């Protein structure tokens, strides 16, 4: 069927597209993963919203929340989104030194936030709110703890990425890797805005 063969090679020049959507595989996968994560946090936030006022033992939310302190740590986390943007922008300009610097600063800001969370958890625990104390305690620590784990994983990824870039071990498109971690980082920040509003700012 030679005619079929030639028929097809006429179109062989169209083959240049590597992805049918124009998005790279990695980026599309990251977006899907983040979509899935929305539902994960949706479930945890719903559980918290259901249980936040249900306190039979231990302190009530309004008795222990230190809103000024959490506002400051939230601000730190939000600023890390800015530095992440700067890291992505430096990576796109192929400026390795600046990229590494901004990645480090982002990781440090994230670590500061985690430090604040550890402090906050310890303070709450001292004031009598344990994980098993009440429905409020279980759901508060689960929700904010899950978020904290996400930030920590982000910090590990940022530091690892910095190490890998320094050693020149990265394969493929460096700017895209930075951007992918950036997507994850911004997602974690946005989720925190929602958590901060619903958990801390709206009185239960």
């Amino acid at each position, binding site marked *: 069927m030679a005619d079929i063969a030639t028929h097809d090679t006429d179109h062989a020049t169209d083959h240049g597209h590597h992805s049918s959507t124009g998005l790279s595989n990695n980026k599309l996968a990251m977006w899907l993963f983040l979509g899935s994560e929305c539902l994960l946090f949706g*479930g945890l936030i719903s*559980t918290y919203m259901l249980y936040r006022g249900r306190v*039979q033992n231990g302190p009530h939310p309004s008795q222990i929340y230190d809103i000024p302190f959490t506002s400051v740590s939230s601000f730190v986390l939000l600023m890390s989104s800015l530095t992440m943007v700067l890291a992505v922008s430096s990576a796109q300009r192929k400026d390795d030194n600046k990229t590494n610097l901004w990645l480090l600063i982002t990781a440090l800001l994230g670590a500061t936030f985690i430090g604040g969370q550890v402090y906050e958890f310890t303070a709450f625990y001292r004031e009598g709110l344990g994980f098993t104390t009440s429905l409020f305690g279980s759901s508060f620590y689960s929700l904010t703890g899950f978020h904290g784990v996400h930030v920590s994983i982000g910090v590990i990824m940022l530091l690892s990425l910095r190490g890998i870039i320094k050693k020149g071990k990265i*394969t493929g498109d460096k700017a895209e890797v930075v951007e992918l971690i950036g997507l994850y980082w911004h997602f974690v920040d946005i989720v925190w805005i929602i958590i901060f509003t619903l958990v801390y700012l709206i009185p239960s």
Partner: protein
Amino acid sequence: MSSNELTLTPSQSPGLVKSPLSISPSGSLGAVRRPVNTTGWREWLFTVDHKKIGIMYGCVAFVFFIVGGVEALFIRLQLALPDGRILSADKYNQMFTMHATTMIFLFAMPMAAAFANYFLPLQIGARDVAFPRLNALSFWLFVSGGLILNASWFLGGAADGGWFMYAPNSGPVFSPSNGVDFWVLGLQIAGIASLIGSINLIVTVLNMRAPGMTLMKMPVFTWMILVVQFLLVFSLPVITVALVLLMFQRSYGATFFDVSQGADPLLWQHLFWIFGHPEVYVLILPGFGIISEVLPTFSRKPLFGYPFVVFSGASIGLVGFGVWAHHMFASGLGPVSVAVFSMATMAIAIPTGVKIFNWLLTMWGGKIWYSAAMKFAIGLVILFTIGGLSGVTHAVAPSDTQQTDTYYIVAHFHYVLFGGMVFGLFSGFYYWWPKVFGKMLNEKLGSWNFWLMVIGMNLTFGPMHILGLQGQPRRMYVWTEARAGEGFFNFGFWNLVSSIGSFVLSVGVLFFIINVIKTTRNPERAPLDPWDARTLEWLTTSPPKVHNFDRIPVVHHLDEFFHRKYVEDETTHAMTQIATGEDLMRAEEAAADTGIHMPGPSYWPLLLAIGVAVLGMGVIYGTPIMVVGALVVLFSSFGWVLEPSVPEPIDFDSPSTDGHTKEIAPLG
């Protein structure tokens, strides 16, 4: 092909030259090298080839099908006669819990994943999935999850709370053994496997279609799998939350389901069914996809109303997210919720009905070839319709309140799941066996297989309608003669019929196994295009070459393969054959691409999955084990990221005219 894909030789694949960038052993992390030339068992353990992974998924899922089937037989033996003594009440609870869990999570979903993995890249004209290593990781995580779930039988008793594991009933007070812990962790890990798999397949379908294959030229099987993966991406995280909460409660003393602390017993039900109802469509849509390939092929007609089949599948998926509370009509949701969910549930019957009419009209006026695959497909249409109709009776809330927790429900979901999904999968076995293994399953044994399964399934599940309407409750481990009723509606008679039916059904499945063994021993090769098929997976050898296609096909039509074989007369619309499958194959081989690189094997998916399993076991057996698991996970994650991707950009390769390959860089 015994060696890995990077050592293709011209004799094995005419027109191919050995890749200039063939893989060379390079260190990663200084400790573990990337496997290079795997043979024997290593070829399977470290493979990232979507076809091998698909076959492994199929084998493991089939083993679990047998396990789940044996569990079902125990249930039927116990209920065959009054005051059954085969199982204790406790063992009976474990048996039905594990039967359902095994069939849904360890047979149905992975078997669909087997078909999806194998055929999805072939149907869209791709050489592999988007993330081959993640694909292997999905498989090994599923195996880990399945082993953990079933290990509970030997480590203090299996889970005993039903597949929906309602909390607080599944809390430590009512379910003190470790069974539920194993169940939670096993499902959590199997869930991660499905999530990774679904992201992988969505990216594959959206990004890696052959040139010219627009979404509306995709085969219906691919479409249905795509819808299923979207359902999984957005429903799995919800069950993940539920499982995490239950795990925190059982293992770390959290209070989520502790009613004495003021917990809401409906929380679990909502979280579970927000996942659980989309899950129902996760189970059935692959079956719909398979028969949407089989019915046109064996009716010798294109699928009637392709866009309607596609969009009704998509709308089933969409509406499927808004009907979960119909599982909870008896829980006191209040009239508004019940009315809304009742209407939504009835609405979902519309796209389903559309599909059934499309299938009927596909067969209408066709030259039907009653092969085994076709028989199973027709079986699905009929049996699923029966199950769908009893399903509509559940949508009517007042009627459902009567039926809840009776055998009528059991009858309904076995008609849709066994009659629907399982028949779809068996149809797929017969249709695609020659493609996967290069040999035809025996049609005569296939006929025995089919008829025994149809008769057995109707004998088993048909009487359950009567039993349920008479009031026999689900999950009761005995029934007594004194309360069995009289005459036509006597429990005893119908329970016995149902139990006998389950053995007829088992003999039917046995015929399939005999057929497989016989076919494997038969040296006779299948023809290249035994069914005069329509879609791209047939545009390659059987079994397909490691790189799937000698050159990436350019798609001009829905049912591209068929349109390459036949031309349509402009005026009469008669189809004239201009080529055979063999002719097309020769043309492909003559114009084969050169320098195709395929992804190399990897140790990390297997190691990472083992790490996750150990980490999970740490929840039950203590923190030291958890730490070991976490270290393995961390080590293999870094190994994974730093793994040398030689030949460079390994994961995807598309041909070009200038002889050089252009790739997108895989990083993930």
